[in-house]
């Protein structure tokens, strides 16, 4: 025991030391300042970047002073620079004293956009790598930092994951600014606040936090910010990283934050009082806090009428359950509880299983794993071929397996129904959770039949009820039951009946709609119009 623990401790120490080495050496204060001589500055930049060929230096003359203009090619909008600065630079050519030169440069020449004066080398790198342009003038230890962001980015296209039949077809892109703009366009309120921070020691990824002041819960906002500040990792490549680092509970398969590619979904979440985390470099925006029911709501629900969306939502929840317990129920019914199956069906299944060499559990397991492999393979194949191959593969392999006598047809039916039911869950994260739980329940069903399945389900229920997402119980509003919040759970109330916002997320500003919103024809006036519409 003690040898094991001391070995573990040694490994931990070594890892910590490695981490420290990766951190930058603490800098001496003098090194932080920009030097007066522009040539020295240039040399320093070149040195730090190792003469990277995409750092562009442009020397210019301003009056009698010389200076350089530095930017990173690819991150900046070169047209901007040549049109505005270089032109205006060449125009003014006056002879003034030291102080005014710089000021003149700052005021008159660089007449575009956000201007900052910086003195710090860290800021220099920050600025350069964000796509800004820096102007160094000889003899001054300040630099002018101008925003000139402009890089190639994907245009706004259709979302690839959450599709809606009747709804807007734009999706987020990889640029933070575009995404925040998409949200701003939909909420034209000054209360929509955006705070930014940079996370990731090496990647310095921009992260934006958007929420509606007055509707979002202040405590949750603070909590989110605290957790983000506490992230100490070298890079953030996608919103998934952020999710995993700030979620409430690590040891669970259920997602406690929601992510989406669609601006309308994120907008409606913000309007309910949630907080959106936009990560630069990925089109998936994270919203927190998240509750269980949310993962069964699709954007289509809100654009159609309430009766069809209620029906389809109930169908979705039903199919989630089928996906989770399907194979397990089949195994339990055919190996433990044969009395439950109607006689004719029992005989039919028995006839099919006569030729199968494996016990039900092995059969089910093999088929399920096969399906998972097919699904995974379908993702990797090029788009044109992928769909066809996965469907055909499933059918052919299933049919061939049946004819070879490896599996029984009933098993193929069960597995395919399960797989299809799995796909009808709108959220991918929840569907994955279902896939994993399915295997555990299958194992339990093999050992103890329905009792095992019930045990597994109870365990799942206890687990779900104990989860919290940023302080909010995960199973709201089912448990704790809150009658006022039932309007969007199983049944979707018509839009004109959803009077209040969900109380568990936002604390202030409850009312969403006004009174008397139920639509109807205008009240008939007497003696004016007959029912045929003739006056």
């Amino acid at each position, binding site marked *: 025991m003690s040898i094991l623990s001391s070995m573990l401790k040694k490994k931990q120490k070594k890892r910590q030391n490695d981490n420290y080495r990766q951190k930058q050496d603490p800098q001496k204060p003098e090194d932080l300042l920009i030097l007066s001589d522009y040539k020295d500055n240039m040399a320093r930049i070149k040195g730090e970047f190792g003469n990277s060929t995409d750092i562009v230096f442009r020397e210019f003359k301003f009056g009698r002073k010389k200076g350089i203009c530095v930017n990173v090619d690819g991150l900046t909008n070169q047209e901007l620079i040549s049109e505005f600065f270089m032109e205006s630079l060449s125009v003014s050519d006056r002879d003034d004293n030291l102080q005014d030169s710089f000021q003149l440069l700052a005021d008159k020449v660089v007449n575009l956009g956000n201007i900052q004066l910086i003195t710090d080398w860290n800021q220099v790198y920050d600025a350069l790598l964000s796509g800004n342009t820096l102007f160094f003038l000889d003899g001054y230890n300040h630099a002018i930092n101008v925003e000139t962001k402009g890089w190639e980015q994907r245009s706004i296209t259709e979302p690839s994951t959450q599709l809606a039949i009747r709804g807007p077809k734009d999706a987020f892109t990889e640029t933070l600014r575009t995404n925040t703009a998409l949200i701003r366009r939909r909420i034209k309120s000054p209360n929509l606040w955006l705070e930014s921070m940079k996370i990731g020691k090496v990647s310095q990824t921009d992260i934006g936090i958007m929420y509606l002041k007055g509707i979002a819960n202040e405590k949750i906002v603070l909590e989110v910010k605290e957790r983000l500040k506490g992230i100490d990792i070298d890079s953030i490549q996608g919103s998934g990283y952020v999710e995993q680092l700030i979620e409430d509970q690590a040891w669970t398969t259920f997602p406690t934050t929601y992510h989406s590619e669609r601006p309308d979904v994120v907008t409606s979440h913000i309007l309910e009082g949630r907080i959106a985390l936009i990560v630069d470099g990925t089109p998936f925006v994270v919203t927190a806090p998240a509750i269980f029911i949310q993962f069964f709501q699709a954007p289509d629900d809100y654009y159609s009428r309430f009766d069809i969306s209620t029906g389809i939502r109930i169908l979705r929840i039903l199919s989630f359950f089928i996906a989770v317990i399907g194979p397990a129920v089949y195994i339990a019914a055919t190996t*433990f*509880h044969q*009395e*439950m199956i*109607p006689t004719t*069906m029992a005989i039919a299944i028995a006839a099919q299983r006569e030729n199968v060499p494996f016990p039900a559990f092995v059969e089910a397991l093999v088929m399920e794993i096969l399906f998972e492999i097919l699904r995974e393979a379908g993702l990797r194949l090029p788009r044109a071929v992928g769909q066809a191959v996965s469907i055909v593969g499933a059918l052919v392999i299933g049919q061939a397996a049946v004819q070879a006598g490896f599996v029984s047809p009933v098993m193929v039916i069960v597995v395919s129904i399960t797989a299809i039911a799995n796909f009808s869950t709108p959220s991918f994260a929840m569907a994955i959770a279902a896939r994993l739980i399915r295997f555990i329940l299958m194992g339990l069903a093999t050992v*103890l*039949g*329905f*009792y*095992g399945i*019930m*045990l597994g389900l*109870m*365990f799942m*229920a*206890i687990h779900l*009820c*104990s989860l919290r997402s940023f302080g909010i*119980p995960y*199973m709201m509003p*089912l*448990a*704790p*039951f809150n009658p006022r919040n039932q309007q969007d759970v199983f049944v979707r109330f018509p839009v004109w009946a959803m009077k209040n916002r969900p109380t568990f997320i936002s604390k202030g500003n409850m009312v969403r709609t006004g009174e008397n919103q139920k639509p109807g024809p205008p009240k008939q006036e007497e003696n004016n119009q007959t029912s045929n519409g003739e006056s």
Partner: protein
Amino acid sequence: MEKAKIKASQMFILVVLFEMGSAILVGLGVSAKQDAWISMLLGLAGGLLFFLVYYQLYKYYPTLPFTSYVQRIAGKWMGRLLGLLYIIYFIYLSTRVLRDFGELLTTTIYFNTPLIVINSLMMVIIIYAIHKGIEVIVRVGELFFGVIYLLAIVGFLLIIFSGLIHPEFLLPVLEQGWRPVFITFIRETIIFPFGEMVVFTMLLPYLNDHKKVKFACMGGMILAGINVTITCAINVATLGVDLFERSNFPLLTTIGKIQLANFIERLDVLFMLYLMIGCFFKISVFFYAAVVGATDLFQFKNHQKLSFPIGLIILLASITIASNYAEHIQEGLKVVPVYVQWPFQIIIPTLLLIIAFFRNRKKKTTSTP
């Protein structure tokens, strides 16, 4: 004591699930034959009466669980002893329920499986739930409340549509007079399940709204009592007195008779589903009360450390308390009510109430100058 708060509606649901838990499963009130349902109703009335005793005690000490205020009332050492006895009592009751549950499963569906396997798996789940705390337990209760009611209504409809109910089996009413009904009432139905509300004396301090205690608990008891009575009546009406007396698990036999449209039959598994949920809650509540009591009495910081040991005790005890089913039932019907249930549920709390009443009177008289 955990820093948890429960709403009145959650307490209500917990009471209902707890009371209904295993009451529907065994043959209750069988000695009153077709008047079993009358003795059920009497039991409900009696239980409500006793609950008032617990409620009064709660009102004197609204923030303390039973094991704390018993020390205040009966003195430190006597109180501690009583507290310990009650903890053992709760452990014993949860052991009995676990044994009942295991016996049912091994008798009907899983007869080759050893009892310890079934019991231990159930205990694993329950230990996990207790570990998470009372808030999680009530939330799970809310989730399953709907499921149970759905099951009950579906079952009820199926029984009606199978044409199984013969109301004439309930006649003649009071054939042997009130005597057997009363005897059954005193011996059985008042203490099980209604007298077991004594365990809620440990849980009432969690309620966040003191005024609603009465409504939540008594309302829950009434609802559960009505459900149990209806089930009893349906059992007799479907099976007839004689089969009702002979069945170990009358409700199971009733459900086994459902036969509809040629393919809905042998729904015993439905029954097992309901049973698992009901017993889960009953065992959890007793178990939790014991854990909280022990935490309180022995001054632990949090209850989670005790959940596993006490769970293990319950598991092992459930195997050892009786060597066969007949002994288990005999214990439950003859020995336990007289020597265990009556004192713990009725006699001791009433005595405590009287003492508390006098103490408070003294306090009032001494505090007014």
